[in-house]
């Protein structure tokens, strides 16, 4: 008797939807074991981390606020994932997007008008897209791996941010703290949408989800993305230009990261050293957990936002260090990657006697 992995003839639809769910549950169980081993109350820790943010309505706003940028960046990344273009440096584009929008804010701090906010959003997206254009150009012209180039640029963007907020853009009224001046009223979106208490970013995420779903499933462009990711030579045979797709994928994810950065800037009302929050990296997990599909990314964004909020809760209640949230996010990523096996393969139990006769 032995277990054999048999390749499926068709990817299992049920498994595609089931595996993310199973992964999260599996990690939760693993979490209980790990925390117990280290000396905390495992069950309580996992409960606070995963469940409390979901059932405690007061936490929903926090979850939504954190989910919005994760979803937005994740949507952009999912396009690249399908094309096997790995924009690991989305964090850098997120930062540069916020910097670009902050630049507009700096230039318009004495002005007012309805046009300022849309301008900030557009420039923020453009900034992120432009920053992503660097790895795109390097890849298409020189064949440089976008993984390494986009990642190096993250560190550069962090330094750029640090320079700007300790230098030219430092808040004159800020008592020499490294931060920009606060955004003015005409530069801020309302923190909450009406009575719902939900942040505006979530609305953007919802709209984005719908738009991306149409692009991915229904357009020729979406088809070309999938083709390039599966078989680049066949995609070229089909008439799709792989260079153009590299540019498009990176700039779309850069633009989305820039948008997320701008919205986050408006939530925080100013830039400071704590701004790089790692959303760009977590969004990679979001896009993979969501199986690079817009609906999945939306849900996955919420799940990972839960772990962020839950991490803070667990720190307060169970006294586990904040770093555990990151640890769990990594475990979720491991789990979803490993569980992909079940989508492509079936487990069969074979007896050792040959079953088939001539």
């Amino acid at each position: 008797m032995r277990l054999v992995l048999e390749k499926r003839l068709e990817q299992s639809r049920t498994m595609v939807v089931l595996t993310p769910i199973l992964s999260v549950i599996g990690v939760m169980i693993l979490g209980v074991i790990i925390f117990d081993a280290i000396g905390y109350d495992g069950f309580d820790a996992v409960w606070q981390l995963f469940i409390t943010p979901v059932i405690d309505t007061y936490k929903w706003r926090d979850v939504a606020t954190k989910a919005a940028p994760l979803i937005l960046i994740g949507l952009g990344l999912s396009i690249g994932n399908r094309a096997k273009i790995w924009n690991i440096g989305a964090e850098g584009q997120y930062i540069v997007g916020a910097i670009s929008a902050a630049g507009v804010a700096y230039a318009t701090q004495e002005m007012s008008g309805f046009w300022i906010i849309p301008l900030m959003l557009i420039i923020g997206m453009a900034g992120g897209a432009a920053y992503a254009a660097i790895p795109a150009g390097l890849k298409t012209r020189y064949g440089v791996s976008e993984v390494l180039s986009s990642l190096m640029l993250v560190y550069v963007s962090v330094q750029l941010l640090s320079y700007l907020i300790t230098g030219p853009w430092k808040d004159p009224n800020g008592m020499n703290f490294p931060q920009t001046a606060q955004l003015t009223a005409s530069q801020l979106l309302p923190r909450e949408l009406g009575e719902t208490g939900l942040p505006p970013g979530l609305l953007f995420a919802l709209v984005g989800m719908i738009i991306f779903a149409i692009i991915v499933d229904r357009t020729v462009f979406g088809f070309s993305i999938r083709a390039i990711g599966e078989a680049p030579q066949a995609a070229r045979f089909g008439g799709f230009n792989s260079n153009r797709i590299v540019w498009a994928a990176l700039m779309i994810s850069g633009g989305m990261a820039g948008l997320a950065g701008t919205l986050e800037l408006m939530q925080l009302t100013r830039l400071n050293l704590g701004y790089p929050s790692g959303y760009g990296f977590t969004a990679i997990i979001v896009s993979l957990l969501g199986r690079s599909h817009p609906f999945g990314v939306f849900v996955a964004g919420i799940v990972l936002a839960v772990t962020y909020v839950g991490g803070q809760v667990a720190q307060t209640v169970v006294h586990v260090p904040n770093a555990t949230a990151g640890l769990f996010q990594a475990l979720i990523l491991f789990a979803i990657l490993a569980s992909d096996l079940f989508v492509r393969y079936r487990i069969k139990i074979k007896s050792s006697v040959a079953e088939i006769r001539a």
Partner: protein
Amino acid sequence: MTNGARSRDGIARLELRGITKAFPGVIANSDVHLSVKPGEIHALLGENGAGKSTLVKMIYGIMAPDSGSMMWEGQDYRASNPRAARKQGIGMVFQHFSLFEAMDVVENIALGLDSAISRSALDREIRAVMDKYGLRLDPRRIIATLSVGERQRIEIVRALLLNPRLLIMDEPTSVLTPQEVEDLFVTLRRLASEGCSILYISHKLHEIVELCDRATILRGGKVVATCDPRKETPRSMGEMMIGSDFADPARGPVSNAGPVRLAVRDLSLPKPDDFGVALQSISFDVHAGEIFGIAGVAGNGQNELLDALSGETLSAREDVIAIDKNAIGRFGPTKRRAHGLCAVPEERNGHAAIGNFTLADNAFLSARTRMGLDPQGMIDRTGAESFAQTIIKRFSVKALGPRALAGSLSGGNLQKFIMGREILQNPSVLVICQPTWGVDAGSAAAIHQAIIDLANSGSAVIVISQDLDELLRLCDRLAVINGGKLSASRKVNDVTVDELGLLMGGHHAATPTSGEHHAPRA
């Protein structure tokens, strides 16, 4: 038909009894008996998909049979892995070489050996073997610069260094020029005369008649006959191999060729990368109703030529390629399709089609322009599915439906689907590279007929192939591609196999700076 371990001439070197092997969905070998004597050149004959490769993989220890037994010189034999098989004295030259492009000949051979040996000692041994068996090769060459025929020599030297008692050759001649085939036969006969047994896998009937002492014929995984090729004819063995009389595709006489539909003038392109071949001033015309063949051994620029014609590689000037007088040299594949040019690349899975995509998606991939499946940049799913369904029906593709994954189809069926997809787009010009490579006989015949029908309807068809038989049967005119250059074209009736062989073997697909020249062949 089957002998016991003792034959009239003594103990068989290798004997298989009742070998059976199954995979999900297919029985590769069923109750196979095989017996090879010492010093015998034994043919293993069968069409693509008959189970020959699977059988020898089990002899060589790459996989184990589900049931049955193997005997080596009367003793039980089981190889758990290739190393054990080599220890036993079995050498194998695969159809697909296990070579490492960036390394040189000596390193590649060293990797094929089972124990470490100093580089200088190995160099000496290699030269000794090459001298003894008449194989020519410079041990310091990097594999990437070698032609296919030269690469095969490395595989042969690797096998011979182990002093095998049984040498298995898997479809060795499909990549050789006619002259190289003769050289190979000389080497094999010398080996056999020294007592080494040779198991020669092929589907090339006239070669088997020329070379082999005995033949075992496989069809559908079963042994259908064992015979002495010297007493048979290619036709009689062909009938045993295929099982029924396939009608030879009907190619009526081509009266007057119509107007020129495809004109290629001075097509020159640099090497796509270090391992490719540069195209040099290729020029030819193809008329309506004509089937134009391009012969050549693999690695002489066929794929580069196909990419240049299909539009995957753009030409320097637009007038280099013209369809029905329209200059299309600077157009990509989509625009070329709009102008009536369709193409079928050599690689089925990964180039002509995407294995993980459905047949409907694969139909969309190439046909969306000519079949109007992409209105305003959106995908017409229903249209794609119904087109795929039409292809499946008209070309008898064995598949579960338009939603089946392309990768789940057999080679022959996928090729039929791909051919059907292009033909049903009604192209003015169709370029095909290796139309029946690795395809079972039934599908191959269907594909040939489809090509003929397309030409008869007025399109211009270009067939690039390594299989001279196929080209001679199908084409009206032929040219030979060699080192990126195209010979002048000749009418099929006016040319001999020998002439073609000379053109094919002219010089190798080495890089222009390789500096190695071959003496002109007699």
